[in-house]
């Protein structure tokens, strides 16, 4: 049982790191709280190094098959550590400015990261569920973190109520599943399903309804239509860094869980659910991208666009196979880098202006050329234009889907990404073509050193966030033009998931 406990060292250390942050927070004067951010980032970096050195090439299942440390979980562990670091760095200025209790915030981010990495690693329903809840709780708190911001409160209550509701549904699905097959470990479930498929007389509806409810619960986490309606409100109400973390972290984690669950447990019955997931994917990508057109608030727009991207990722689930899984993971990475870039740019903009409507971006290209360029690159990448990550990952994903006989779905996906191009371009147009909005001009008048007709020099974003943004932008281009090394790692992960092809 406990012979290879040390393989969980990163998790334990991460938990203790979070506790340390909580503790140190008590002794730090209010002014120095940002040190906690550096502490957390340093810790994450150390953990990343440790995990990579210690777990490289391991493929072992722990605790009687509750968890696995294999290439797959390692890949996502690393991914989440890096993501957490980026989120913390990107939010330092924001936290300093808007949050009353920063220490707890960083700690909760770390807990969320822990939950995510366990989600990716767990191969058993209960463990996965608990990890999921750990992550969800962290997000409930973070979303409601803007304590005196009514929108933040509202987002929090909506998120936690719907979240609890959906986890109840998920649990009922689990219970039905358990009632039908009597086991909760993925491999055992797979075996049971294979036998169930083998002899049709032992056909048990509870099993399928259970699977459906599980899919609903996870569909809520990834905000797939029709379980998506919380997303725009929550994204808009949540503090910006949290929105970023939510739209990237929770989605990727949920997909990591989903991919593992479907790949290792539900694979035998792919013929039954492939079409369902495909249809879900179709309506998700279409609805998300279409409704995004009507949005006027950046966060909301990005929320809908992320719904659209979830549709694309579901495409990868529907096309579950070696190439499908590879393309899905690649897509998640590319999407994460890109939308973190966009969100970081938005955070930087928010830090200097305190606004996040599309209209407020007017004249950004003149006042903050770098922010504008970075955001434009990110948006182009999201819309799948080449030279950036978006193009490559979409090409890979759609090709993969086509090889699994879903060419029609790929076609729909391309069309909806065409639709998405429209609203992304509207934002780009706002930044590059439209003049600065009225309030900016007024600011300009106030500052006498800036010429009257120039848009306001609305302060400059901090060096830190600009550096992070630059790094992310480079990442976007890198994934776009040289995904080769990334794909090697992903292939290993897929091999661990579905067995070597």
């Amino acid at each position, binding site marked *: 049982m406990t012979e290879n406990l040390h393989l969980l060292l990163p998790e334990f250390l991460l938990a203790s790191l979070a506790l340390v942050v909580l503790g140190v927070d008590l002794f730090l004067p209010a002014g120095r709280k940002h040190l906690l951010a550096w502490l957390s980032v340093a810790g994450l970096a150390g953990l990343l190094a440790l995990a990579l050195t210690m777990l490289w090439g391991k493929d072992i299942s722990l605790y009687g098959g509750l968890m696995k440390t294999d290439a797959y979980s390692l890949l996502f562990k690393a991914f989440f550590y890096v993501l957490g670091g980026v989120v913390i760095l990107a939010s330092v200025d924001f936290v300093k400015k808007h949050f009353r209790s920063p220490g707890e915030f960083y700690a909760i981010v770390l807990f969320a990261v822990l939950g995510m990495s366990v989600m990716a690693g767990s191969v058993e329903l209960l463990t996965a569920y608990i990890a999921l809840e750990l992550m969800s709780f962290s997000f409930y708190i973070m979303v409601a973190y803007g304590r005196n911001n009514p929108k933040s409160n509202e987002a929090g209550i909506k998120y936690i109520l719907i979240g609890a509701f959906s986890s109840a549904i998920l649990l009922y699905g689990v219970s039905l599943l358990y009632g039908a097959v009597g086991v909760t470990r993925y491999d055992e479930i797979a075996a049971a399903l294979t036998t169930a498929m083998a002899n049709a007389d032992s056909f048990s509806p509870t099993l399928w309804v259970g699977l459906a409810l599980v899919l609903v619960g996870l569909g809520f986490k990834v905000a797939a239509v029709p379980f998506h309606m919380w997303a725009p409100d929550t994204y808009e109400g949540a503090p910006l860094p949290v929105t970023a973390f939510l739209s990237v972290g929770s989605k990727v984690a949920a997909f990591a869980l989903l991919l593992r669950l479907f790949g290792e447990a539900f694979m035998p019955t792919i013929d039954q659910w492939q079409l369902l997931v495909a249809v879900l994917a179709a309506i998700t990508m279409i609805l998300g991208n279409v409704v995004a057109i009507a949005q006027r608030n950046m966060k909301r727009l990005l929320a809908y666009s992320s719904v659209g991207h979830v549709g694309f990722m579901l495409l990868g689930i529907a096309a579950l196979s*070696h190439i499908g899984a590879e393309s899905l993971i690649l897509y998640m990475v590319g999407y994460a880098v890109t939308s973190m870039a966009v969100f970081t740019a938005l955070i930087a903009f928010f830090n200097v202006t305190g606004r996040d409507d599309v209209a407020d971006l007017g004249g950004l290209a003149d006042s903050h050329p770098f922010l504008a360029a970075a955001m434009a690159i990110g948006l182009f990448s999201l819309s799948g234009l080449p030279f950036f990550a978006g193009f490559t990952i979409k090409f890979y994903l759609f090709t993969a889907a086509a090889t699994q006989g879903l060419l029609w779905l790929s076609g729909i996906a391309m*069309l909806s990404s065409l639709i998405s191009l*429209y609203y992304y371009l509207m934002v780009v147009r706002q930044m590059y073509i439209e003049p600065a909005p009225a309030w900016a001009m007024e600011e300009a008048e106030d500052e006498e050193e800036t010429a009257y007709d120039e848009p306001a020099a609305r302060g400059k974003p901090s060096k830190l966030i600009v550096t992070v943004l630059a790094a992310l932008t480079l990442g976007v281009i890198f994934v776009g033009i040289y995904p080769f090394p990334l794909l090697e790692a992903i292939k290993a992960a897929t091999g661990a998931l579905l067995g070597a092809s």
Partner: protein
Amino acid sequence: MADFKSIALLLTILLPAGAGTLLVFMPRNATMAIKSLAALAGALTLALTIVIFAMYDYGEGGYQFVNAWRWLDEPLNIDFSLGIDGISAPMVLLTGIVMFAGVLVSWNVAPRSKDFFVLFMFLVAGVFGVFVVRDLFFLFFFYELAVLPMFPLIGIWGSSTNFGNFLRTKEYGAMKLTLYLVAGSVLVWIGIIALYVAASDFLGDGATAQAGFSLELLETLGEDGAFSRNFQLLFFPFFMVGFGVLAGLWPFHTWSPDGHVAAPTAVSMVHAGVLMKLGAYGIIRVGMTLLPEGAEAWMPVLIGLGTVNVMYGAISALSQKDLKYVVGYSSVSHMGLVLMGIATLHPLGLGGAVLQMFSHGIMTALFFAVVGIIYEKTHTRDITVLGGLSKRMGLTVAFFAVAGLTSLGLPGLSGFVAEVLIFMGAFQEYWYLAVLGVVGAAITAVYILRLLARAFFGPMDERWNHLSDGGRIEMGAAAMLVFILIFVGVWPMPLMDVINSGVAELLSRFPGV
């Protein structure tokens, strides 16, 4: 020299792209340095393309300057493989010329000249990419990369025009152009993926060879029968229409006049001059090379639509009041000729089509350059307002006239050779369509001559008394284009030898022809 040959094509992409990247890091207000750097890059690229074209050995034919780097391993097997044949070589040369002219013409573009040149350079890099790669993935990659900068280029530096009964804002033009072209590329994308899937299905699992996106691979697989007749019949239209959108194929052409009206001069030049050729080139390179059977079956449709293009564009141009609309619709009409030539599947017609791509590229670039100069001077493109300009802007008008005479197929200018070849080819199969094409060319004469008479000749309006010809640099660029038009018109041999080799290669894939 071999090593040069192996990297020459890579350089065509890297020179502009590198220049663009370099420009990113230059201070925004060092406009002179920025312009000089851009011009330098343009000149180098032009020289490079000339050298490449000259070094292409048409006697040998086939793909030359070949080189390849593995980009992704299985399952996708994508290579960054380069090479040009007799069809892409002239296109590369064309791109080099138009790009250089474009840089010169936009010499005093403002504001944000830095951003302009950065985007322009990447646009050109994308165009080169499409012409020199031999892998469907990268062909598509560069194809979209070439579309991407269009939006900001038009949106920022374009011009909105109010035509009384309707308004065309630059935002509208930019948005429509971008969305429309990407919409077309969606069809192409589906087609490409379908090709890959068909190939991998054909090979099956565990086969020694693996499917991929490289053109040669797919060609050989196609010869082995990877693409069934029905598959070809089903998917050729995807390429025909998808690329056709960019080629201005009727009725998918409307982005072109509006886009050109909105676009700044240099962008119109590169766009009408080169990007529209990408479409025709794509049909040839992807559709016809990989799906000959489908192509053969669909060609009657294509030539029919092409003829519609010719007539429709010419007739619409007749009643336009805006210089750029006239030129835009004439582009639609002339691309119709290209499509007709392609669809003849006859060595004469195809050769003429490729030559027409080249000739029209230069010609329309010249058109837009001159229109740009005129617009810069008079701040209007309204034919009814202009008048008698030639009294003050004699040379400019002369250049415009040369472009016009080229477009109406005057012998001694490149347009004539191309058109006659196309008609010769079309006459073999579809003599009635060829007749229509000739009539269309005649109509071209009508609107060009009306335009000249109304806008440039006749008594001059007092307001234009202060005008004079364009600046040295712009006029120099225009003069270069004029020279090329005449040169090709008088002595098309060097171009045609190369084109013939490419066309012969292509047509060898058509058993029926």
